């Protein structure tokens, strides 16, 4: 299995949109997950639900 493994052991890099001294920063792995969650939320809103329409 180790032959396939991608090393993620090193500390993550950070996104610092307001400069290096700002208190706001987020690691890229967390940022990717947050973006994925937002995309899924938007898709759940706009895509039609499979299996037919709401019968109410």
């Amino acid at each position, binding site marked *: 299995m180790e032959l396939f*493994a*991608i090393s993620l*052991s090193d500390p993550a890099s950070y996104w610092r949109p307001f400069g290096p001294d700002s208190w706001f920063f987020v*690691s890229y*792995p*967390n940022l990717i997950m947050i973006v994925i969650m937002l995309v899924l939320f938007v898709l759940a809103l706009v895509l039609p639900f499979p299996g037919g329409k*709401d019968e109410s």
Partner: protein
Amino acid sequence: MSRESRKARNAFYARPWTGPNRHYDILKEGAIALGVVTILVVALSALFSSPDDPALTFKGWAADAPDNFYSVMVSELAGTSGTATYGPPYNEGDGVSLGPLTLQKWGGVTHPVDSANDFVITPLSSQVEPNDVSAALKTWNAASADQQLKWAGDYDAAVQATADDNGDLHLDAVATGDYGPVPDLAKGALAMGTSGAYDNALTGQGQFFQTDQTKQLLLMGDGSYMDDRATELNLQGNTWGMMNEAGSWPGQQWLAFTSVWYQLPWFNAADDATGITRTLTDNADVIIAAILVLLLVTFTFTPFIPGLRDLPRWIPLHRLVWKDYYKKHGRQTS
């Protein structure tokens, strides 16, 4: 409720279903879900591995930072370490407070820790020691508490006085003085740490099955070894640490709501800061906990709070969720 009305209510709920039926195979759906999740787990594990950092040990600390290990042992004997001065629940003191509410003190000492005995004397006494360390133990145990504190306090001050501008200690430059058995005790503890015996001595206290790691964590937290490792891995509280994972893995994004408060400058005052920022930083944990409780109560009572309860009218996201309903019924609400 009378017996008749209860019977009528039960009969009402027990009516047979007369609406439409749809075939649904829960076993089939469960089997498909299990299969998909299994394939995903195996494939992603093979591709990305998992965080597997080895646990920090006292042996590693003693080998990597022996001067720090040695000086922490001295501070535990002197009662000046972070643990010894922490306050409840480990020892007497005030601890953090929320204004006039001394919450930590009210909690009381429920998990007493005697730093000198628990971290130094008891581990040293648990194994056969070289002659100089055995003699130091006898001298320490025979001395009065005041004498012990005088020896350890003086030696602790002398050790800390050797710190340079970077905070690094120079133990070969400690001023000579009457420190009693303290240097030999610290030397013995360092030897135990270096050999790996200290790890077993501390985890072996008390019960056969050891699940309480409080003392190990407290002692390691008194030194720089765990702190430096946490800084290296971006796990410190003021670097969004509770949201991060070791390595480049995504962490606990759902803790952003809590973590964000620890990033604000008001709760990160410099060591020499005074005034309100000093107070806020020193009591950050309890103040932030109070803020979160306040927000939680506010959200819980949203339906009763004018303005907050009107947000769905101003931001009608729910119409997007139930768009079919609103397409059919327009803006009517019933």
